[in-house]
């Protein structure tokens, strides 16, 4: 393809390297170094998108990340599609697939553009006023219709095959922005020896220097100086330069988030490389040198393809060697656009006219224009444009004494506009630094700082390369001083600098009915000047209300182009000065940031760790089904061939009740409590008495919150006078340890106690069932396991299967039971030794489901299932676990509060369904009167419910109001379609006298 608008040999693109990509299916050729936007412009394509509301045809308006119009879908194969990519930022790569958005059936003919014709009927906020009648139409017709109109690009539909990375970085000085100010700052900071990082969002560092090759610095051309400066910085070991890296947010205490784009510009994806990397930078000092963003002018038809910012045209010319048209007109309120026009004229573009809204323009500019043969129209306004898919003419009128004179039409194929410049203070605003209106600069400038930062260059209203360089050097030296470095403040000899000034305009005056003008402020969201005025007329006086009512500034550029123009017009409508109306708050991120980069390493299996026990691999090899319990995965049940869960669990239950089962209990939390005051400490923490517990014995422990509600439970063994082995629930381990540390460190620092988490140090195997002792005895050395010598609730340190062990005689099943703790590294070997030994005794492995059934048959609670954070020990039937003689323990006082001692609290009971085959649903609600209307008075709910293989019927536990006074009462469980009946019982279904433990 010919690239008719490319200027051979001009710009920084590599003219020897063609790059081909497609746009809406059509092959386009650009050059290495192009963006999609510059490559399309080189081919004469301005039409790149459609606006959100009116579907108006739109061309590229800027050359940077603030672009609101030229948003495209980009793709590089399966799973790698992304919408809303700024064509001005996406570098071309071989084979890139780009498509335009928000159009049907095609970009040049879009049915949705009917909205444009209906524009007058759908002004700002119209939807609040209508779609209310008929009422039934809202859900069925209007709302689906409105929702269908949403959005710009299409969503990705496949999982993202790329991965993302993240890193931390610490430095003395972080400089954001690689234009002249940022470079000078980096040179000053770098030369001082400070650890310095310079980041820039563009592919190439240089900022405005890339677009102003005519400036001479220190006797060199701008590009030569830039190359030398970068070369010098690269030689400094203390300086890191990062391009394609956007500073997305400025957080507390000088933390700045960066997003570095690593592969989107590459022709071929490197194997295994991350697509993007999130950096969390902690900087001693931050230098914000982000420059300024050019403002559009607001006039009727300022949105036609071909109408663009003058500075953008200058960038396309110098950086990319692309002329944006053959015959351009310029409209401006600022000197800067004049220079852009001169550069275009020098490049051979016909500049039809420069229209300046100011009556007075520096003579040096008008003289130069005249010398170049450009018509100069000062004191003029623009009142309209024509051209459907590309601007064709612009209508200009003289303005005198506020009166708009007769218009005339100038033909053009591009119209360049400049409404002045807005300092980029987004990151500064993230810090809650305040801004102050500067009337002279016609802009908000930084005022009060809250973080350790410097603002340099155009960011604080200094225009021109010389000022930027000097201010950057000052800021860099000042920033380097903080870590104690000494930096010289450089001076720079600059020739050909383009300083300038301008005026701040609201919408341009017109001789036509302003009510019919389509003078856009927010291009993407189609917010016009008259929308802003309508919002004010309707009582929206706060700039935040204006923004939200009109959606001005809420597009993907987040108001970078529209905020100040919107503010000036709102202020005019309100009859106030701009600073009295105020500015909306800038929020992170500076530019839209991919979810992938924000999620970075937390993807798939790395989203959260999965904790596995030492025995997990055996369970997996044996075909266990697992369930997640907090961060752990636990064996749920061990199905054999042909078994479903029900059958497997029934078999496991039978085996435990008649022979012996093995259970991996390693996930239970374990805390070693040691020290002379260990017993005193536990006395105060737990409800139970501990002082008199003898070494070698254990006891069930119950832990409350200070609010009196059950937090955790577990068996606690006393190994010595000053040594306790505390167990907690699987999910509660960290919480309990934190709670213990809190009390120990801050309430009772006088107690001589040490706490150590030992959860991962011990592997635990529970042996439960009548054959448990027979299985275990041969493996235990020198220890009598008989009931007399080693009774229920005994604990001892011994050797099991050759491993050092803590052996507990405990039961969570009601059967004879032991729990063997060995150092975790021996867990698998212990398990296999027990497994081997158990073959003669009918051993089976069982999982958490069987554990739950067996404990429910005994009425043992699971904290978090049978309790829910509002259950007291008395509610749970655990009043016996409270040390009656104790004057205090955590939560005791709360148990005496009026509503805690009141009658009618929910109490844990057993339930037996009338139909023994029916297993109640856990969570099912219980009523006393099944015939009442809805809403019913519910008196409780089922907390645990299982098929009991031992009893050959279902069993359940429930929290029921006044439950213990209802023994024998029949209650009702209304289910969809039928009501079940169940009798209240004591929650202890199997071996209620505990005979099986006394063997």
């Amino acid at each position, binding site marked *: 393809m010919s690239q008719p608008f490319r200027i051979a040999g001009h710009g920084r693109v590599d003219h020897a390297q063609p790059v081909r990509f497609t746009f809406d299916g059509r092959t386009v050729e650009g050059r290495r170094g192009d963006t999609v936007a510059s490559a399309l412009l080189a081919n004469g394509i301005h039409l790149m998108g459609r606006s959100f509301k009116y579907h108006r045809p739109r061309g590229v308006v800027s050359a940077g990340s603030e672009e609101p119009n030229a948003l495209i879908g980009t793709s590089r194969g399966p799973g790698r599609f*992304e919408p*809303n990519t700024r064509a001005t930022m996406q570098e071309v790569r071989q084979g890139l697939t780009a498509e335009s958005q928000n159009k049907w059936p095609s970009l040049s003919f879009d049915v949705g553009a009917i909205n444009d014709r209906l524009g*007058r009927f759908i*002004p700002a906020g119209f*939807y609040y006023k209508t*779609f*209310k009648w008929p009422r039934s139409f809202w859900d069925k017709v209007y709302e689906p219709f409105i929702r269908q109109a*949403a*959005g*710009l*690009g299409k*969503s*990705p539909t*496949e999982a*993202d095959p*790329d991965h993302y990375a993240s890193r931390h970085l610490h430095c003395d000085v972080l400089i954001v922005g690689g234009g002249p100010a940022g470079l000078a700052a980096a040179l000053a900071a770098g030369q001082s020896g400070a650890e310095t990082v310079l980041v820039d969002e563009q592919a190439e560092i240089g900022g405005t220097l890339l677009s102003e090759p005519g400036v001479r610095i220190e006797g060199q051309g701008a590009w030569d100086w830039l190359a030398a400066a970068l070369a010098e910085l690269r030689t400094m070991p203390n300086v890191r330069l990062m391009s394609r890296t956007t500073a997305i947010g400025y957080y507390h205490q000088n933390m700045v988030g960066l997003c570095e784009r690593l592969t989107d510009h590459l022709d071929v994806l490197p194997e295994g490389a991350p697509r993007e990397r*999130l950096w*969390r930078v902690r900087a001693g000092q931050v230098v914000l040198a982000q420059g300024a963003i050019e403002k559009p002018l607001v006039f009727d038809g300022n949105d036609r393809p071909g109408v663009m910012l003058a500075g953008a045209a200058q960038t396309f010319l110098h950086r990319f060697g692309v002329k944006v048209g053959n015959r351009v007109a310029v409209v401006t309120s600022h000197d800067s656009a004049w220079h852009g026009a001169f550069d275009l004229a020098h490049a051979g573009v016909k500049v039809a006219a420069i229209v300046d809204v100011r009556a007075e323009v520096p003579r040096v500019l008008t003289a130069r224009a005249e010398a170049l043969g450009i018509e100069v129209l000062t004191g003029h306004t623009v009142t309209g444009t024509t051209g459907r898919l590309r601007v064709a003419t612009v209508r200009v009128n003289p303005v005198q004494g506020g009166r708009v004179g007769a218009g005339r039409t100038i033909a053009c194929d591009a119209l360049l506009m400049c409404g002045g410049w807005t300092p980029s203070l987004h990151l500064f605003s993230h810090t*809650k630094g305040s801004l102050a209106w500067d009337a002279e600069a016609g802009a908000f400038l930084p005022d009060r700082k809250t973080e350790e930062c410097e603002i340099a260059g155009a960011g604080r209203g200094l225009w021109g390369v010389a000022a930027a360089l000097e201010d950057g050097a000052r800021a860099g030296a000042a920033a380097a001083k903080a870590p104690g470095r000494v930096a010289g403040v450089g001076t720079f000899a600059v020739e050909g600098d383009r300083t300038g000034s301008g005026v701040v305009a609201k919408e341009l005056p017109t001789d036509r009915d302003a009510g019919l003008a389509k003078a856009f402020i927010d291009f993407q969201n189609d917010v016009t000047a008259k929308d802003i005025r309508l919002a004010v*007329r*309707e*009582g*929206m*006086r*706060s700039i*935040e209300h204006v923004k939200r*009512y009109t959606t001005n500034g809420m597009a993907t550029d*987040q108001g970078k182009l529209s905020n100040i123009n919107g503010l000036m017009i709102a202020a005019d409508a309100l009859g106030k000065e701009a600073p009295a109306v105020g500015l909306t*708050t800038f929020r992170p*991120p500076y530019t*839209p*940031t*991919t*979810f992938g980069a*924000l999620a970075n390493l*937390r*993807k798939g*299996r790395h*989203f*959260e760790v999965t904790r596995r026990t030492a025995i997990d691999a055996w369970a997996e090899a044996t075909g266990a089904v697992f369930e*997640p*319990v*907090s961060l752990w995965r636990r064996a749920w049940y061990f199905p054999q061939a042909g078994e479903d869960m029900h059958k497997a669990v029934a078999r496991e239950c039978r085996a435990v009740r008649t022979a012996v089962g093995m259970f991996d209990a390693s996930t239970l939390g374990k805390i070693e409590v040691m020290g002379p005051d260990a017993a005193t400490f536990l006395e105060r923490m737990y409800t139970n008495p501990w002082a008199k517990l003898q070494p070698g014995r254990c006891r069930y422990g119950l832990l409350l919150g200070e*609010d*009196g*509600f059950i937090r955790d439970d577990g068996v606690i063994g006393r190994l010595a006078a000053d040594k306790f082995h505390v167990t907690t*629930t699987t999910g509660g381990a960290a919480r309990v340890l934190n709670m213990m540390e809190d009390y120990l460190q801050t309430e009772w620092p006088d107690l001589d106690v040490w706490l150590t988490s030992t959860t991962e140090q011990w592997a635990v195997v529970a042996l439960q069932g009548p054959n448990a002792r027979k299985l275990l005895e041969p493996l235990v050395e020198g220890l009598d396991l008989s009931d007399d010598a080693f009774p229920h609730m005994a604990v001892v340190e011994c050797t099991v299967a050759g491993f050092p062990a803590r052996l507990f005689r405990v039961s969570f099943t009601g059967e004879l039971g032991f729990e063997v703790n060995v150092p975790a590294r021996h867990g698998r070997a212990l398990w296999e030794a027990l497994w081997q030994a158990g073959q003669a005794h009918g051993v089976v492995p069982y999982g958490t489901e069987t554990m739950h059934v067996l404990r429910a048959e005994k009425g043992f609670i699971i*904290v978090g299932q049978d309790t*829910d*954070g509002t259950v007291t020990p008395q509610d749970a039937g655990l009043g016996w676990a409270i040390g009656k003689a104790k004057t205090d323990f955590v939560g005791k006082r709360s148990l005496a*509060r*009026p*509503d805690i001692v009141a009658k009618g609290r929910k109490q844990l009971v057993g339930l037996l369904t009338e139909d023994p085959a029916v297993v109640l*649903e*856990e*969570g*099912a609600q219980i009523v006393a009167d099944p015939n009442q209307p*809805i809403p019913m008075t519910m008196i409780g*709910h089922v907390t645990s419910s299982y098929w009991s293989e031992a009893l050959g019927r279902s069993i359940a536990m429930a929290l029921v109001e006044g439950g213990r006074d209802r023994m024998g009462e029949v209650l009702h469980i209304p*289910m969809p379609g039928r009501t079940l009946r169940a009798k209240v019982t004591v929650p202890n279904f199997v071996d209620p006298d505990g005979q099986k433990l006394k063997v």
Partner: protein
Amino acid sequence: MTHYSAFSLLKNALSGHKNWREHWPDAQPKAEYDVVIVGAGGHGLGAAYYLAKEHGITNVAVIDKGWLGGGNTGRNTTIIRSNYLYDESARLYDHALDLWEDLSQDLNYNVMYSKRGVLMLAHNVHDVQSFQRHIHSNRLNGVDNRWLSAAEAKAFCPPLNIAPDARYPVVGAALQKRAGTARHDAVAWGYARGAAARGVDIIQNCPVIAIRRGPDGAVIGVDTAKGFIKAKKVAVSAAGNTSVVMQSAGLRMPLESYPLQALVSEPIKPIFPCVVMSNTVHAYISQSDKGELVIGSGTDQYVSYSQRGGLPLIEHTVAAICEVFPIFSRMRMLRKWGGIVDVTPDRSPILGKMPVKGLYVNCGWGTGGFKATPGAAHLLAWTVARDEPHPINAPFTLERFTTGRLIDEAAAAAVAH
């Protein structure tokens, strides 16, 4: 008040939209009101509206330190639902849901209440137990909520990843079809417009300095940046700032204020038909009528009024979204922001009379106040007008923290084992 309709829109279009009247006048404070409401969010403005409309009390001022609707009303993720566990909560939120149904017609202002359904994901056995308990309780309370299998959940919300090998596989979901979203700003504006039309003064940019009490301890008015305003009844509906305002009346509250963050993506064509919440993974997401994915994050761990919020929380939130919806990994975050939420010890609100004569409070809504807006407003108006709570808000007293009768929805979903 101009009646809004398709006809008025058409008529005004023909006159170039020059004749629209303001939604509410910019009022300056009078010397005295029957009722002063502190806080011009949806709750406070709504209370003024219902005081005027249902109780005939129109000499009312709503005052705010900033612009109306600028607090949590304009900063939330607009989720509306009522599938709460406890009877007290279910009735409270379902009362709000009943009012949401007719709110656009009632206010003559389209608040865009969208009954798109709220899907709450279960990821493990504990979630299933907890959700079943909610569903059974809701059914007997007359609150819509039902169980979906993972496949049914995916059919309802196609972007959902239900792969069984996910780190947190979806094992099912609870669906409240009547739940959904609404346009948050429109709620504040609609109530403000309706209240102003009935004579209520809305006074913006007027910080309250103190609640003043007379010699007998009763409330006599409020000191503000615009001077003293006399009132025998003062209702505080100031969300994150409640502690500070109540302190000026000599009351210390069981509240802490935390920054809560939220974010939106760039706008995309409709892909996400409902609201999805996962408490286990901490992912809350819907798609706005503009096309943005609206995503709720969590609270930062520390008390703060800074509305700033840190990056780590956002990283975790977005990771959670990508875990449940891997197709969104290449989407981009457009904007994130923070609000300040006031949280009570049991995470349920306090809505009722204070132990000071003439003082009422509506606070402690934590992260879930938007959904309650019409209900809270309606009940606050009732309580102020009659000087006694409505039966629905009667359990939500300050006294419950003394007696121990907490309404702890969060604890009821507690995870332990």
